């Protein structure tokens, strides 16, 4: 089990990077901007909120610098109107991904049930230990294969959409980049993480705009290596934490769980142990005051962050 993955910012990203828990109720964005030395306008990416992306007054109220909304979502909608083929292809891709997901869910459901049964036996039956590790290994295999299949579908549609040769997409990218010219930092909000990633990828925003970045909740998730969805409390939601796809990989070795106290059953050691042992990265729980930050020179600092250990226990994290 990879219990101590190395935690690092992507070596090619050499700006301050701050990952936060939820912000809307009690934002600390201004403080973070000050730590990053940002005194000028900042770009806000709130495409995860889809049609509500420009409902951003609370962010403007929370910082002392001008905020420029990237309109990443709205401008993509305009692109789809001009070039409906892109939307058709993306919807087709979505259907393909949904079909993969359905089968993946089935596999995880059964392996998860076995893992839970074995967990109950671990203390009283030593014979359960090896099968427990074996089952978690199988879940990891399923995850790896699933991720490959998802990436293959995404690559296939990238080829078919051919964004580099498609005028409408190039214009979209130019329109977004024009808006962000002169901004000194990126603020990345949460929302629908899949939508956010789709728009970030369509625009290639993070390739073209490298600035001090402050991301929170779903925005912070999107910058990781892998995207996992979770919620122990929604009625009828699937029980298994779901691996969705690759993220932007601006940081490594960490898996972030925003609103952990509201969305994960932190009393359930079995579920958390499965989580911690299944995922290749450290499982960090983010709540309102949590902060994980890399300075411009790459020094890591954390505050109010908890980690799930292999036994499903939750502890304060000190890297």
């Amino acid at each position: 089990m990879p219990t101590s993955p190395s935690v690092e910012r992507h070596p090619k990203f050499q700006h301050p990077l701050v990952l936060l828990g939820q912000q809307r109720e009690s934002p600390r964005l201004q403080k973070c901007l000050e730590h990053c030395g940002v005194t000028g306008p900042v770009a806000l990416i709130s495409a995860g909120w889809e049609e509500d992306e420009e409902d951003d007054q609370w962010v403007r109220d929370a910082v002392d610098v001008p905020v420029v909304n990237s309109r990443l979502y709205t401008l993509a909608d305009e692109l789809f109107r001009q070039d409906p083929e892109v939307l058709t292809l993306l919807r087709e891709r979505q259907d393909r991904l949904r079909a993969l997901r359905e089968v993946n869910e089935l596999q995880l459901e059964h392996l998860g049930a076995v893992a839970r049964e074995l967990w109950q036996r671990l203390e009283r039956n030593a014979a359960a230990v090896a099968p427990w590790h074996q089952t978690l290994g199988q879940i990891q295999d399923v995850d790896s294969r699933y991720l490959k299949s998802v990436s293959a579908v995404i690559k296939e549609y990238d080829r078919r959409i051919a964004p580099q040769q498609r005028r409408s997409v190039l214009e979209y990218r130019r329109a977004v980049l024009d808006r962000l010219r002169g901004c000194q930092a990126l603020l990345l909000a949460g929302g629908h993480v899949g939508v956010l990633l789709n728009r970030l990828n369509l625009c290639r925003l993070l390739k073209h705009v490298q600035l001090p970045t402050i991301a929170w909740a779903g925005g912070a998730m999107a910058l990781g290596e892998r995207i996992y969805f979770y919620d122990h409390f929604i009625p009828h939601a699937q029980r298994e934490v779901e691996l969705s796809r690759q993220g932007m990989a601006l940081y490594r070795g960490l898996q972030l769980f925003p609103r952990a106290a509201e969305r994960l059953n932190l009393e359930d050691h079995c579920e958390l142990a499965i989580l911690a042992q299944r995922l290749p990265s450290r499982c960090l729980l983010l709540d309102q005051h949590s902060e994980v930050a890399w300075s411009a020179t790459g020094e890591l600092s954390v505050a109010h962050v908890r980690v799930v250990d292999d036994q499903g226990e939750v502890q304060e994290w000190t890297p």
Partner: protein
Amino acid sequence: MITLSPEDIQAALVAGDDVLKKRLAGQRFPLVSDSRAIFLYHGVADAVALQHWVYGLPSRIDLQRLGQTHWWMLTLDLPRRSRIEYKLVVRRDGHEHWLLDPLNDRIAHDPFGGNSVVHMTGYEEPEWSQPQTASPQGTFETWSLNSRALGGDREIRMYLPPRYRPNRRHRLLLLHDGDDYLRYSRLAAVLDNLITRWEVPPLVVGLLNPQDRLAEYAASRAHAAFVVEEVLPEIEARYPVIREASGRCLGGASFGGVASLATAWYYPNTFDMLLLQSGSFAFTDIGTHHRGPVFDPVVKFMNRFRDAIGQPAKRFYVSCGVYESLIYENRSLIPLLQTAGFQVKFEEARDGHNWENWRDRLRHALTWLFPVPAWFYYE
């Protein structure tokens, strides 16, 4: 929590009417403790009875007069987490009066007026059904349709959700007795809350209302044609809804459940999802039924359906109160649907055949039928 026992009440009464009134001050009525409820009535009467709709108990249970006073009392054992609707029947001078319990301000309204309600220990009115003025709210539009199938104009009310966007493809829920769901099940508040929390996607909801309910909803082919051949195309022409079965759900309660199942059965592959609450799914294995002539077409349909289940939908949410006589018909539907390979969620509640029972099930129903967008949102 109860602080008084029947013995306390009797003892206080011996000390005098005023003493009892003082002891009762500030209490919520009926007095409830664990699985016991004490009903009290104060007034001049020849007899007082509790009229309730709990199938399995005598429908009328007498309150006992306390000595020669004008106090009447009944102690009843009712399971925890129950929610019971009732009235008091007061007989005086040869006349009978059905009353809401004057001591109980908890009232459930329905198309027939209202009933007093007792919440047993463990039952809580769901917070997600409470209107939230600060949250975004859906909007309503109403238009009418000249129906060839049913004859005459029909009004259709539409609920357009928070985050309704003309350029999106929304899922569609069509509900029988739509206005009753709005009035008695707080449907608008439920939808607003669940949609705002991303527990269900922003649904467009079509609210259907009958003119001759017992005829139209009793597995009528004309009604099915109205829904599928007239209402559905009109909604699809007016609103950005997903134009395939996978985005459509049809639902209703009681006879509205029958209308939903029958419509989906007559028009297979039109709706992938069905919401069936306390469906009046009466059937016979042999011989005749005893539910009265309005059920004749229902029994005929249900017998045909049970014989050849077809492809009415793929995903079913079925609920029923355990205090309804229909619990047996609903329970027996489940293995039938499961054996046919459909996805089925069945839930029972300690409640009766009423709109608040149906309201309380809506969160589980809608999150089951319309899988959870909250899964993807991280604020």
